[in-house]
Structure formats: C-alpha cells, structure tokens
C-alpha cells in the first residue's frame, strides 16, 4: 500500500521549529529510539469525512470521562456505612443515608464546581455510549468491518459491551433512590439465571440484596477494572486502525490499494486535537445548562421506596423495555424443598437478549462473508444502498432496538401524550416482531430504488434544470452526462456476483457430501444478492453516450463541476 499525500510541505527539519527541537529530540531518540516509528507514522494519511469522526467523539468523550472521573474520586466515598446527614442540603438534614450518597450530595452542593463536573461526567457517559453506537452503525452500514477489519469490529463490540457495564456501574454508585432501583433490577436479572441465579446473587452482593458491599465492589470495577479494560481495548482498536489504515469512500484516485487523505502531521493531528476541545467544550456547555441525574431530588436509596419514572440511562433502556413487554412466563419445577423457579419473564428479555445482541453483532462479519463468499480485502467503503440486504438487516435491527426503547419509556410516553400504558405495551409487543420485518422490506426496496436512480443518472444523465424548447415547440428538461468523477464514484463498486444453484450431484452421479450445507449457502447468497441492481456495463455506457450526443441539446457548455441545480434553483457545487 502506498500513502499518497496531496499537500506539498517544507520538510520538518528545515523549519524553524524543526531546527530548534533537533537537539532535545535527538537526545530522546538516542535513549528510547522512537524516531523510526514516529518517522513512519508522522505522515500517516487519514481520509476525511464527517462520519469518520463519530468514533472520535467516543474517544474524546472517554478522555473527558477519565479527567472528570478523576476529579470525582477525590471526594466520593464508596461506602455503604449509614451516617446521619448534616450537610448543606436542608431537606435531607437529619436523614440516615449511606456515605456514598452523602458524599455525592457534598460533591453537588459543597465542592466548588462539583455539580458541574458531575454533570459533565454523566453527560459524557451518555455521549460516549451514543457515539459508540453511532460509530458502530456507520461501520456496519458502509461495510467497513469486512476483511481485514473483522477483529477490530469484535474489539469494538467488546468496547460497546464493557461501556454498557461501566456506565451502569457509574449509575449505581451515588446510592440514590434511582441507582438503588437500577441495582434491584440487575439483582432480579442475576437471580433469573436458572439454577445458579440465587447463588450468583449472593456472590455479587455478598449476601441478600442490597447488602453493604456492592457499592465498594462496583466502585473498584468502575474506576479500575472496566476503565482499564476499555483503555486496553481502545489502544488495540487504534493500533489496528493505524495498521489497517483507514477506509475511504470511493472516488477518483481512490482504490483498494491506497489511502487518499491528509497527513497525520500537521493536518490530521491538528484537526483531531481541536476536535477534542470541541467535544470537551460542548459537553461542558451541556452540563452547564441542562440538568442530569439530580440525585438530591431522588433521595437516598431505601429498598421500600420507589419513584415513578424509574428508568436506567438510555443505553440500558432497550433491556428495560424488553422486560416491560415480556409476558409473565414463570414456572417452578421439582419437589417442594428442592424446587427451582425459572423466571423466563426476566431471563429471556434481559439475560438472553443482551447476550444475543452481542453475539449477533460479533459474528455478523463472518456470517456475511460466508454468505457472500467474499474473502477479499476491502478498503473502499460501500454506500448503504449498494448492499441492500445488509442495510435492510441493519435497519430491521435498529427497529427492534427502537421498539424496545419505546417500551422502556412507556410510562413517560403514556403520561406526556395522554395515552394508555397498556396500549403502548401491546403495540410494542406486536411491533417488536412485525416492525423489523416491515422495516426490512421497506429498506431493501428503498435501497434498490436508489441503485436504479444511480444507474439512471449514469445512463441518462442528470437533470440540469434547464428547460429546452425544441423546433416543434415542445418543452423538455435537458439532461447532461454526470461529471466524470461523480460517474467514477458511482461505479466504483464490485459487480453483483453470479448466482448459481448448489450442485447436488457431480457429473458421475456422486452426491455432494456437503449437499445440504451448499444448498443452504446458495439460498442465503441468493437471498442476499438476488434483488440487487448491478451497475451498467461498458456497452450500456457507450450506448448512453451515443444517445447523449444525438439527442441532448445543451444550450451552452456547462462548467466541469456543474452537477445540476437544487430544488431552489441554486447550482450544486461538487
């Protein structure tokens, strides 16, 4: 692979800065010997597209989390020892509460800037998870997880899963009524695991819920174990990103064998570094003007209390929703003193479903490669429309997730929109099965239509917005051929593979030992590709060019970068 750069620059050693820093850098290189590595990577090329920054939002949110989290550890006391509150918040004075809750109240009301930092921490946690999912969807819908990036995809799924647990642990630490209710939920989730559930509960909580050890244990996980894992996985994610080089959108000069973009130094480092400050500043702004998790409004945790509108943070909302719409399936087997309760009402929607989500996500790249038979390396991204079946599966998954999400907030929706909570639950119960199917069909049809539209533009040109009157007096809109670079980008995708039936017997009548498997695979491949619209052939394009030459009346020569007009009549620039 060759890195191609488009910026002519002065060599670093010839600049003022380079001459000045030659001494100290030389000293450092003689001792740690990083020059080779740095020289190799300092001009590393990264392509530029807004969607490539989604992962960066997650990365920088993580840095913000580390910074603000460190601040919070200075004052937070991870202890469930009961004390009588005597702090500045009047309506709680004289109330028994855990030290964890009291110290969180202190951070909010007594420590200078404490509430702001707490809110930055919580908002950036919400943003971290949201950015991870947005980034994951970008990678999925553009096929960026294909060979050689399958392992990095799995690392990303690991980051998603650990981020989920990390966020939940943080949500539970302040020991307010909401976090205690969330812990109770997880307690039920652990207990629902057949046979070993109650033993696991005693193991996790050191006895019956809530016990007095869960906060210190979660604290250790939240500030040491899980961030350590996240940090390690993020490092691996980045190293693999540098090793594989970034994917890029197809376009002139961009192939499967190069990377077109900007060099690490000075351009990309400046952009990425600047983006960190944008993310930090934006999160701080949100934390300064929008309240999140007002723990003083909930009060200290007390297992006999609960508040309406108890929900987990948004990234656990879909599990909450799945539990809310699950029918109450529960049964007990065995003689009385050895009986086992199987809480399928919790086990299926919470434990199994979460496991299912991460499993499906992790094996998807391998599954897709098995179906398509595609073992090639890919560095060019696919537009979602050019993989209609994959895109349709993705949107179906999003629909499933979204319906669960809605179900998780069914009480808030019922309250704010004056609806019946049972009706919402039933709509979600049906929608969780029907919605993904409908979404799949609609999405695939939209993708296919968009493929046809691209082909139409390639063969018949784009609408120039110029109305031409012919000699006979009829009016028609002049079409003009697409600019070459646009046409190239549209056609820079592989052809739809030939679909062949599975071979059951060879010429000598010997049965294919892999007959059933091969048939299944052939069926899956047909399902995946059969509806795709292939790009036009060279003959099609030549015929179309001929057609243009004969029939189109461009009133005047259009500039190279003219690519039609918008609905408001403004020429679009490319």
């Amino acid at each position: 692979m060759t890195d191609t750069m488009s910026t002519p620059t002065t060599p670093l050693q010839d600049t003022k800065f380079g001459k000045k820093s030659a001494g100290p850098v030389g000293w450092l290189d003689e001792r740690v010997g990083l020059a080779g590595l740095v020289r190799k990577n300092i001009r590393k090329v990264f392509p530029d597209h807004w969607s490539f920054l989604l992962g960066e939002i997650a990365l920088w949110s993580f840095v913000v989390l580390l910074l603000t989290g460190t601040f919070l550890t200075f004052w937070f006391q991870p202890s469930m020892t009961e004390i009588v509150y005597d702090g500045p918040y009047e309506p709680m004075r004289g109330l028994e509460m855990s030290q964890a809750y009291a110290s969180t109240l202190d951070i909010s009301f007594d420590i200078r800037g404490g509430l702001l930092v707490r809110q930055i921490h919580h908002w950036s946690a919400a943003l971290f998870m949201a950015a991870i999912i947005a980034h994951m969807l970008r990678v999925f819908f553009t096929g960026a997880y294909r060979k050689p990036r399958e392992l990095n995809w799995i690392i990303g799924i690991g980051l998603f899963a650990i981020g989920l647990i990390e966020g939940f642990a943080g949500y539970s630490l302040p020991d307010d009524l909401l976090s205690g209710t969330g812990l109770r939920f997880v307690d039920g989730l652990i207990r629902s695991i057949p046979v070993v559930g109650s033993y696991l509960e005693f193991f996790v909580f050191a006895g019956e819920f809530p016990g007095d050890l869960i906060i210190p244990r979660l604290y250790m996980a939240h500030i040491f174990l899980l961030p350590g894992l996240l940090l390690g996985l993020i490092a691996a994610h980045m190293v693999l990103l540098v090793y594989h080089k970034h994917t890029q959108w197809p376009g002139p000069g961009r192939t499967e064998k190069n990377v077109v973009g900007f060099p690490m130094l000075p351009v990309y480092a400046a952009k990425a570094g600047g983006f960190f400050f944008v993310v930090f500043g934006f999160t701080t702004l949100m934390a300064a003007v929008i309240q999140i998790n007002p723990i003083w409004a909930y009060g200290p945790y007390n297992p006999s209390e609960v508040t309406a509108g108890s929900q987990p943070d948004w990234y656990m909302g879909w599990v909450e929703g799945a539990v809310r719409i699950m029918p109450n399936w529960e049964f007990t087997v065995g003689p009385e003193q050895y009986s086992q309760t199987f809480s399928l009402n919790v086990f299926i929607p919470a434990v199994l479903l979460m496991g299912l989500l991460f499993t499906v996500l992790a094996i998807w790249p391998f599954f897709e490669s098995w179906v398509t038979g595609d073992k090639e390396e890919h560095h060019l991204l696919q537009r979602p429309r050019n993989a209609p079946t994959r895109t349709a599966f993705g949107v179906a998954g999003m629909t499933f997730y979204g319906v669960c999400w809605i179900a998780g907030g069914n009480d808030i929706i019922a309250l704010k929109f004056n609806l019946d909570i049972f009706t919402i639950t039933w709509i979600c119960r049906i929608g969780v099965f029907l919605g993904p199917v409908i979404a799949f069909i609609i999405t695939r049809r939209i993708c296919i239509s968009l493929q046809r539209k691209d082909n139409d533009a390639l063969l018949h040109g784009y609408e120039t917005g110029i109305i031409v009157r012919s000699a006979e007096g009829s009016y028609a809109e002049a079409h003009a051929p697409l600019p070459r670079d646009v046409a190239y980008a549209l056609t820079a995708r592989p052809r739809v593979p030939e679909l062949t039936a599975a071979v059951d017997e060879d010429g000598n009548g010997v049965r294919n030992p892999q007959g059933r498997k091969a048939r299944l695979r052939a069926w899956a491949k047909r399902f995946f590709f059969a509806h795709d619209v292939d790009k036009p052939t060279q003959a099609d394009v030549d015929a179309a060019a001929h057609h243009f030459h004969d029939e189109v009346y461009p009133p005047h020569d259009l500039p190279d970068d003219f690519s039609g007009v918008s609905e408001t009549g403004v020429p679009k620039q490319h």
Partner: protein
Amino acid sequence: MRFLSTHRRHPLAGYAVLLFGLLVAGALYASLAPGKADADTASDTAKVEQGRELFLVGCASCHGMNAEGVMTKSGGNFGPSLIGVGAASVDFQVSTGRMPLAQTAPQAPRKDPVYDEEETDALAAYVASLAPGPAVPDEEYTDVSDLSEEELTRGGEFFRTNCTACHNSVGAGGALPSGRYAPSLRGVSAKHIYEAMQTGPQQMPVFSDDVVTPEDKRAIIGYIKSVESQPQGGFGGGGLGPVVDGMFAWIIGIGGLVAVSVWLAAHGARVKKKRS
C-alpha cells in the same frame, strides 16, 4: 329630537337601535336576575339550600336528585353516591375543576373551575349536610410556612415512601394502567393536596388521619412545596428522569457534535482546489 328625526334613515341607525336595545336588556337582566346569596349573612341552612339548588342544576344528572348516585342499566356506576363523601371531597373535586366532568374519560382532568369559591362552599355544605364526612381542612394544617427542618426531612421520607411511586420524586406525575395517571403536583394548593390525601380522589388511595396524621400530612405538603424551590442543575427536562436525558444526549449531544463533525470535515486545512 331634531337630531333623531333627521338621522333616522341613516345607514347606521338600525345598528344603533339594536345596540341600545341590547344594552337595556342586559342592564335589566343584571339588576333583576336572582342575586347570589351573601355568604357573610346567609345562615347555614340558606347555604345548604343554595348548594342544593346548584346541585340540582349542575350535578344531579349524574349523581342523582338526592346525591344517592345513579346506576347504569347494566349495574355499573354512572355517577357515584355522594352521601358521606364530606365537604373536603366536594371542595377538591369542584375547585380543581375536575367536577363537573366535561366528558367521559379514563380520569377527570384538572381544569379551570366552573363554580366560584362561594358556590363551591355552598355545594360542599349541601353534600356535608347529607351525612358526616371529612371537612375542608383548617388553615393550621395547610399553612406550611413555619415547618421546622426535622418536619421537612420527615415529610420527605413520608413523601418518598407513600407518594413517589405514582407521583414521581419531584411530583412530576406518572402513568397508571388504562389511560389513568397520577397528576403532576406542581402548582397544586396545599389545601387541595391535603384534601386529596384525606379523600383519595379517582385512582388515589385514602390516607386517613389514622394512617398519616394531620401533622404528617402538613409535613408532606411542606416537602412538596420545598421541591418547587429545590436547586436545579440547569434545565431539568420536566423532572422525568433518564428518558429525557437520553433524548437530550442523542438530539442535542450527538446531533450537535455531528453538526460540528460535518463542518470540520468540510473545512479546516483543506487544500484549495485551484482551477487553471
């Protein structure tokens, strides 16, 4: 009179006469229509009688001519009996506008009251005269201005134990089955909160004086009122909790940062394409 005779065929004359007629009719009605009984001078019996008259006009169609309730043909409850519900119940239902009901619905919503204070008193006096029931609370139980710190803390504990499960921890309200709901407590007067606890309107259970003493009721009301002035870490999103936070994280957070990303990818250190 010369003015009238010269202007009687003026195009506006007809309208002027009509306006004059309306004014006279209105003035006559205002002066001759049956006036409201003066609360200060009316005796209790007169008040009860006034209440009965109002009841017959505005309430009896559902609650029955003698407030005995009306059954539907299938044996359901068209309008419940009001015998023994007490003045507190009438005061709560009527002065929060829940009664008279505008239409059948899963639950009577709070709206602008139809009857004024004096008419509400009369209705309450009439219903109270039918059978004994909880009275409208004295001001000593609804004045929460002089609550001590301990009472406020205790009120908070009572509130979290008994109320937040339906009304939410800041009293923002919550959903109940079949389209019913626990309404928001914001802007509800101390008297109405007290009456609601005492009489258990609609879906709400009764918290009688044996269960929650009048002093504890007062402490709860004091805590609810203190919530309205509790500190805010910025715009609160209605106190509805993590669902709203998640919405903000996606729409404002990711939406805003994606907007910045689009800008950043489109601008910055891009090499200018120079056309030759």
